[in-house]
């Protein structure tokens, strides 16, 4: 068990965003969290990444309570995240953005007189991640000048550059054209293998992606876990398909077969 939530409740005033959510993420899993708008997906991600403290219940990462400890502390423990709305450093280059993550991972960001340009390890490490994400030829481009799809990739890539054990991806393919979504996922899954990620959690709306890549799907509805099962089981569950997926799922012709091998 890498990450475990037990009976997590999150209240915003009188509004119940999460109402007793329990879930666990095991070694090697790719888990998708799905649900209609307002189901509590974003709140759940924020609770799982220590950004929000649960009102009740607990979240444990590698056995340690991480409720509300904050992202900075969580990255030290080995968790990273990307964002639904792409988060980049507009005036920094691709390489600099990745270097920042590498510096954070290696420590020593407080070395105020050290030369960044002269640090071959930071550079090599950042370039390696850039290569994994097909961004190496754009290493010196300012991130604000990147096309939208590359911005999204960079957001995810910088999280990977932390070489975390587990990563939470908040809609990794939102804002990416339908034609490119599978390419993005392939890059992501490939990078996960190379970096040796122990688990991936994603929140995703695109059901082709969800059903094509997940080992397990957790369906949220009104702050509760409606279903927690394999893609095949979810597909067979008419109620969940109706309430959460909103339609009968027909796999994309190019999508890998459900339960195809991945990290």
């Amino acid at each position, binding site marked *: 068990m890498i990450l475990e939530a037990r009976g997590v409740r999150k209240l915003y005033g009188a509004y119940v965003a999460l109402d007793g959510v329990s879930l666990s993420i095991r070694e090697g899993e790719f888990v998708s969290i799905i649900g209609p708008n307002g189901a509590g997906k974003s709140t759940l991600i924020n609770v799982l990444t220590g950004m929000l403290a649960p009102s009740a219940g607990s979240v444990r990462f590698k056995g340690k309570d991480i409720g509300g400890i*904050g992202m900075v502390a969580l990255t030290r423990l080995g968790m990273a995240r990307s964002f639904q709305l792409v988060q980049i450093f507009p005036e920094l280059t691709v390489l*600099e953005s990745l270097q*920042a*993550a590498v*510096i954070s991972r290696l420590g020593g960001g407080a070395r105020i007189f050290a030369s960044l340009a002269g640090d071959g390890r930071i550079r090599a490490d950042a370039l390696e991640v850039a290569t994994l994400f097909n961004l190496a030829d754009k290493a010196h481009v300012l991130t604000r000048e990147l096309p939208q799809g590359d911005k999204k990739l960079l957001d995810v890539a*910088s999280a990977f*550059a932390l070489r975390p054990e587990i990563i939470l991806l908040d809609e990794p393919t939102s804002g990416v054209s339908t034609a490119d979504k599978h390419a993005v996922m392939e890059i992501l899954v490939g990078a996960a293998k190379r970096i040796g990620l122990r688990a991936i959690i994603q929140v995703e709306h695109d059901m082709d992606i969800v059903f094509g890549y997940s080992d397990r799907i957790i369906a949220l509805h009104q702050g509760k876990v409606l279903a927690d099962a394999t893609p095949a089981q979810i597909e067979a569950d008419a109620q969940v398909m109706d309430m959460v997926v909103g339609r009968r799922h027909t796999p994309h012709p190019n999508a890998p077969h459900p339960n195809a091998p991945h990290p």
Partner: protein
Amino acid sequence: MRTATVLTLVSLALLAIPLVAPAYYVTLMLPFMAYGVVLLGLNLLFGYTGLVSFGHALFIGIGAYTGAVLTSRFGVRQMELILPAAALAAAVVAAPVGALCVRYVKIYFGMLTLAFGMVFYTFLLKFYKLTGGDEGMRMLRPSLLGSEWAGFSKTAYLVGPYYYFSLAVLVLATLLMWRIVRSPFGLCLKTIRENQVKAESLGVSVPLYRWYAFMVSAVYAAVGGALLATPTGNVDPTLAYWTHSGNIVFMVLLGGFSSFFGPLLGAFVFIFLQDTVMSVFPYWRLIFGAVLAFIVIFAPGGLMGLFARPRPVEVSRG
């Protein structure tokens, strides 16, 4: 290469100025160099970390008063001791002040620094015994490199040894800051300026790095403040007054905060423009106010922005 050429020419000019320029203009270079040191530090906070301090004159005041107290009360005349003492005094004050201020951003950070500046100003004004109140204190001529330069008249001292001493400090401060902004630390500061949420998600401890930047900028301001006190020969509470903080922010904007050398250019133009305008027109703030409005509206990259490709300045930054 163009930068290298310009830097070489500027360095040669700075070395030659005392030899060729009238003494009056050489003495005007002294506050330029002192402010240059202050602004290099201020811009680490402003341009690189994205925090605008409206109370930085506090640290100029600490540096200047350290010099005055040491020379006129304790008989310590060596500038080589005064500058580290000023840096240390600023660090001691900046540690708690910074720890409180860096929890806030934007206008709240600015207002809190302003508030601490006003507290210090009032302290200087009211603690007459220690600070001389509104009359201030004398900053006696410091010794440089172990020499009192006794045979030199005041002007000869300022345009000779003191000029070159100030220049050496400015060059050293510039080289150090050049290293700082190109270090892993400098990159972390830029990530905070660019996107605080993303920086935190990458494990950059935003308050801690802001505090480091605050400390460095306070030390720079105090060293500049100590340099500034000698040509005036007197320090008084207006050094720490909020309009002085406003002036140095203006200098940074004038030169351009997105450029490493922008603040130095800003200090230079400010000093000489102020001198020129004041000699022909008593209401120099009227002119400077108009210049400031013009820069913010039409040239947000400052004077450097007119030469180099400016970083686009957003009206509001998240």
